């Protein structure tokens, strides 16, 4: 959507506020002083509008509660695991370099834990997009037997008996009757604050950094049809939030989106992951099959396999991929490393509050 349309709305809204001095709505808002404090989420210049559900506006108390819940092992069956166990800040909220994640009972999942970064802009969650919102996603891991393995009923008993949580929920949501929905809402609020826009790439866009020769060449490969990465890892978020088969396999063990939609045309399609902070999120792909970015680049260069659902965007499939020479591979790697945001992985607002 065009920026001027947003502007239009603001102007109209402005008119409304200046022309209607005695509006009862405004008085209501200011008089409700006992409610939570609205959280002023500043989204970076050039980023899309963030769709925040109308029934879960960000509040200072809600975000802070969500952060605590994200890091609190109270939400697991044996009090050993929190969301942060598999989504660690130093790894851009992916799982500590593990290919698969281990739940509290020692079971391994079959998918690689994705980074949680700029997730407020994701139109769907999980590799196969099966959750439509962060709220819906956050309901999953707690009762999942191969993850935190705690029924929501038991989780409520623990949270209600806790010395702090009833007050914290009451401050954030105005109620002491804690339920799974409120837990999910609080966590989702925290996740929406996990914004990255301080990579060297962002600094370059802001005119605060310049590219090395190798980065500049890598930039060219990424953003031209030489590499053609931009068609899927697109926009300022470095993902189109759409699903593609990028040619990893010719025989599938995990059919991804196909299992959700039931359409064989969707087999082996997975959500394009953002490439922001990709340097910190090894191993790579939905099954963590590649240990390094070098391996990923070699895959796109020589390892692409044809299958009936391969994305029509994939080029030179018959030759196995882009056929990049060693210098081009190195340059592409330099570019991907430009997307690393150390401010994000060190941001004290995102860290363990305990």
């Amino acid at each position: 959507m065009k920026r001027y349309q947003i502007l239009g709305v603001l102007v109209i809204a402005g008119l409304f506020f200046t022309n209607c001095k005695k509006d009862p709505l405004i008085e209501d808002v200011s008089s409700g002083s006992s409610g939570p404090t609205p959280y002023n989420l500043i989204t970076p210049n050039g980023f899309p509008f963030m769709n925040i559900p109308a029934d879960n506006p960000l509040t200072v108390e809600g975000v802070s509660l969500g952060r605590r819940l994200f890091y609190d092992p109270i939400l697991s069956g044996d009090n050993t695991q929190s969301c942060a166990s598999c989504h660690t800040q130093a790894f851009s909220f992916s799982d500590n370099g593990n290919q698969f994640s281990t739940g509290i009972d020692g079971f391994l999942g079959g998918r690689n834990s994705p980074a949680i970064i700029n997730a407020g802009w994701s139109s769907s969650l999980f590799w196969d997009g099966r959750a439509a919102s962060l709220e819906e996603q956050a309901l999953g891991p707690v009762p999942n037997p191969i993850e935190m393995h705690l029924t929501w009923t038991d989780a409520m008993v623990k949270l209600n008996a806790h010395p702090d949580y009833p007050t914290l929920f009451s401050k954030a949501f105005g109620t002491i009757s804690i339920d799974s929905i409120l837990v999910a809402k609080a966590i989702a609020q925290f996740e929406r604050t996990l914004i990255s826009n301080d990579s060297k790439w962002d600094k370059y866009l802001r005119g605060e950094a310049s590219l090395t020769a190798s980065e500049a060449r890598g930039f060219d490969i990424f953003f031209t049809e030489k590499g053609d990465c931009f068609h899927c890892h697109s926009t300022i978020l470095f993902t189109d939030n759409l699903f593609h088969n990028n040619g990893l396999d010719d025989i599938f063990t995990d059919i991804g989106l196909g299992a959700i939609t039931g359409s064989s045309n969707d087999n082996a399609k997975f959500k394009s992951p953002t490439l922001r902070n990709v340097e910190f999120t090894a191993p790579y792909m939905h099954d963590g099959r590649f240990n390094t970015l070098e391996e990923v680049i070699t895959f796109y260069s020589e390892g692409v396999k044809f299958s009936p659902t391969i994305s029509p965007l994939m080029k030179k499939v018959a030759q196995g991929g882009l056929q990049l020479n060693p210098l081009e591979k190195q340059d592409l790697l330099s570019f991907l490393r430009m997307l690393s945001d150390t401010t994000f992985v060190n941001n004290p607002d995102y860290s363990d509050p305990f």
Partner: protein
Amino acid sequence: MRKYRLTYLISILCFFVILLACKKDSPPNDNKDYINMTFSFAHEVDGLSLDFDTIKYTNSIGNNYSVATLKYFISDIILHKSGGGTVLIDAEHYIDAVDPTTLSFSPTDMIPNGTYTYLSFTFGLDSAKNVSASYLNPPENNMEWPLAMGPGYHYMKLEGKYDSLGIIKNYQCHTGQSMGNPYFVNLTLPVSSFTANGKNLAVELIMNVNKWWESPSLIDLNDVTGIMGNQVMQLQFMGNGADVFRVGSIQ
């Protein structure tokens, strides 16, 4: 798209709040001298309905192919009055053939009553409208055309597979402002003249995908990969685009 609708909703809401709360003068909106027009978009391949992901179409040069993606912009619809004079609808619209919510376009501009003999529009975005970073939100922002080859947005992404001597290959018909040169298409569509007289009108525009591959330039899908920087191909698609649409029903 979702945000798009939300914005309108909010605008409309705010508007009503102003009307109700502040008792401002309402603008004239019961004017019988103007009508609203709706444009709907349909797609076919030489009379066959457009189905996705199945290789079942054949173009003039003999490629057997499928369509996986068809996304594009149209803009600046112009209605031409009988006896001269035009009405410009200064707006752009994004279409994704698989997304029903994009298949109809109701411009906010009102159209004056009169008899119109033909309509024309821009396929893609002209240079004034094709400005990088003007679309920040999905789905339009995913049409971005990198600065290094652009700037602006893809006019069209038409992608799919074709059978190349028994090997299935991908094609990507990506048109846009290539290396600084615009290749948007001006289409003029003859219609049997229609009259607007106080009653809203719905106009159907039908794209025949096969027309992209012929007249005047015969296209072989083997050449339709990595063409974003290819001026020769862009020029050919600009030429072929002139007759890809026809007007269907007007009611």
